[in-house]
C-alpha cells in the first residue's frame, strides 16, 4: 500500500489555465472525493494522474514511484487502476473478455510455442479465470458475462468498467464520475460498492464526482477545486460549511439589483 502525493500541479490548454498549483494527498486506505463546479479542473487532475495529460509543473508520486515518468499503459503495473466517465468499454467484446483485458499485463511473456499450446489446450483461459470469476462475483455480473459489453444498459456498463479496473488488484483506483448517468437505484448501490471496494478489497479510492450526496456520503476527506485552484479540503462536514465552497458552487445571491 502506498500514498498518492500530488504537488503543485499546473496545466494550461492554449491560453486557458486549467490547473494552477494543485496539491492533494490520498493516504493508503482512504476514500477521497475530488469535487468542484464544472470546468474547475477535476478531470484535468484525473487525466494528469492517469497520464493522459502531462502537466507543465508539479509532481505526482505514488509510494516511491514517480508517476509522471510512467506511460499511461505502465500505470496498471504500478498498481493504479482507473475507470471512465462514459465507461469506455470494448463494446464488441464480451463482459468476460473486457475484464480479462484488465489482466493484460499478467499475460506475461511466453515463448510462442508455449503460447500456442496454452491456447489450443485452453490453459490460457483457465489461468486467469479465478481472478475474473472473483471480480465477477464481487460486482454481481455473472448473468451478463457472455454478453457483448456494448449491448448492456449504461449502469451495468459502468460496473463492468469498475470490474476491469479492479481485476488486476490495484492498490489505488481512480473513479471518474461513477455516478454520472446512473439511475436512482443504482446510485444507492454505488455508495455501498465504493465502501466495499475499500473495505473488502483493501483498495484506496480517489473519486472525482459531481453528485454531492454521494461524495459527502462515502468520502473520508473531500478536496474542492474551483478555477484550477484548491479552495478547500477536509472532512465532508468541514467542506460543506466552508464559505469559499458555498460561494463557488452557488455564486452568491443573484438579485443584487432587484
Amino acid at each position, binding site marked *: 500500500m502506498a500514498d498518492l502525493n500530488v504537488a503543485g500541479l499546473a496545466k494550461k490548454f492554449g491560453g486557458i489555465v486549467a490547473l494552477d498549483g494543485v496539491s492533494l494527498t490520498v493516504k493508503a486506505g482512504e476514500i477521497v472525493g475530488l469535487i468542484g463546479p*464544472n470546468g474547475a479542473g477535476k478531470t484535468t487532475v484525473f487525466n494528469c494522474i492517469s497520464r493522459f495529460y502531462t502537466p507543465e509543473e508539479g509532481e505526482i508520486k505514488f509510494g516511491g514511484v514517480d508517476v509522471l515518468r510512467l506511460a499511461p499503459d505502465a500505470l496498471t503495473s504500478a498498481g493504479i487502476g482507473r475507470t471512465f466517465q462514459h465507461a469506455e468499454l470494448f463494446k464488441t467484446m464480451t463482459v468476460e473478455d473486457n475484464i480479462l483485458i484488465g489482466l493484460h499485463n499478467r499475460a506475461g511473456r511466453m515463448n510462442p510455442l508455449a503460447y500456442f499450446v496454452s491456447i489450443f489446450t485452453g490453459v490460457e483461459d483457465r489461468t486467469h479465470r479465478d481472478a475474473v470469476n472473483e471480480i465477477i462475483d464481487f460486482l454481481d455480473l455473472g448473468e451478463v458475462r457472455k454478453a457483448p459489453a456494448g449491448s448492456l444498459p449504461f449502469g451495468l456498463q459502468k460496473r463492468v468498467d469498475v470490474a476491469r479496473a479492479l481485476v488486476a488488484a490495484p492498490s489505488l483506483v481512480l473513479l471518474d464520475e461513477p455516478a*454520472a448517468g446512473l*439511475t436512482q437505484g443504482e446510485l444507492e448501490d454505488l455508495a455501498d460498492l465504493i465502501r466495499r471496494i475499500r473495505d473488502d478489497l483493501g483498495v484506496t479510492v480517489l473519486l472525482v464526482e459531481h453528485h454531492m450526496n454521494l461524495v459527502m456520503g462515502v468520502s473520508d476527506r473531500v478536496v474542492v477545486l474551483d478555477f484550477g485552484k484548491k479552495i478547500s479540503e477536509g472532512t465532508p462536514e468541514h467542506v460543506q*460549511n466552508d464559505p469559499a465552497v458555498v*460561494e463557488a458552487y*452557488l*455564486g*452568491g*445571491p*443573484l438579485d443584487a439589483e432587484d
Partner: protein
Amino acid sequence: MLKIEGIEASYGPVKALHGVTIEVPEGGVVTLLGPNGAGKSTILRVVSGLLRPTAGRVEFDGRRIDRRSAEAIVTMGISHVPEGRQLFDEMTVHENLMLGAYTRHDSDGIRSDIKRLNGYFPILEERREQPAGSLSGGEQQQLAVARGLMSRPRLLLLDEPSLGLAPLVSRDIFRILRQVNREEGITILLVEQDATSALSFAEYGYVVETGRIVIEDASDKLKEDENVRRAYLGY
C-alpha cells in the same frame, strides 16, 4: 405556450426520459434542475427537434411540434442555446450571428437586430471580426445567447449558460437574460446546475432525476424545500 406531455426518449438502448410533463407559460421563466445526466438537456433536445421522442407530445402555441424537423421548429420561434455553447469556432463573431438569423430573410431586420443586440452585448461589437473560438468563456457564452436571439425567437431554450464561468461573469449573463425576458417578452426555459442562480432567476422550477420530474413548484417554495436544499444547494 410550451406544453410537454409525457415524453419518453432514448439514446440507442439507453432510455433517457421516462414520461416528462412540463408547462411553460407565455412570457415566463421556468427552470429545470437536477444532477448531471438526469435528462435535462435531453428534454431541451426533444423540444428543439434534435431528438425524436418515442412517446408523448410537445405542443407550441397549440401546434404539435414533436415530430417536426429542427429547421421547422426554429422557424416557428423556438431557439436553443445548447450546452457547451457549440459556437462555430473558426468563423467570426459576425458570421456566428448571421447563422443565428439563417431562417430569416429580412436583411434590414437582421441588421437592426444586430445593432440592438450590441446594446446588450457591447463586447460582441468590439470582437466582430474575430473567430469565435478566440473569445473568452464569458464572451463565448454571450455570443451563444446573442446568436440564439438572432432568429427572433419567442421561446429561448438555455442549456447551462453559467457552465464553466466565474460567478461574476455568470451573474452578468443572467442579468442580460432577465433584461431580454422583461424588455422583449421572450419566454425562457432554463436548464441549470447552479441551483441558487437558477431559482432566483426563474419563477417556477422542475427537479429532474433519472429522466423523471420528481418535484415541481414555484421557485420560492423550491428554495425552502428540504430535499432540494440538501441535494442541490449543498447545505
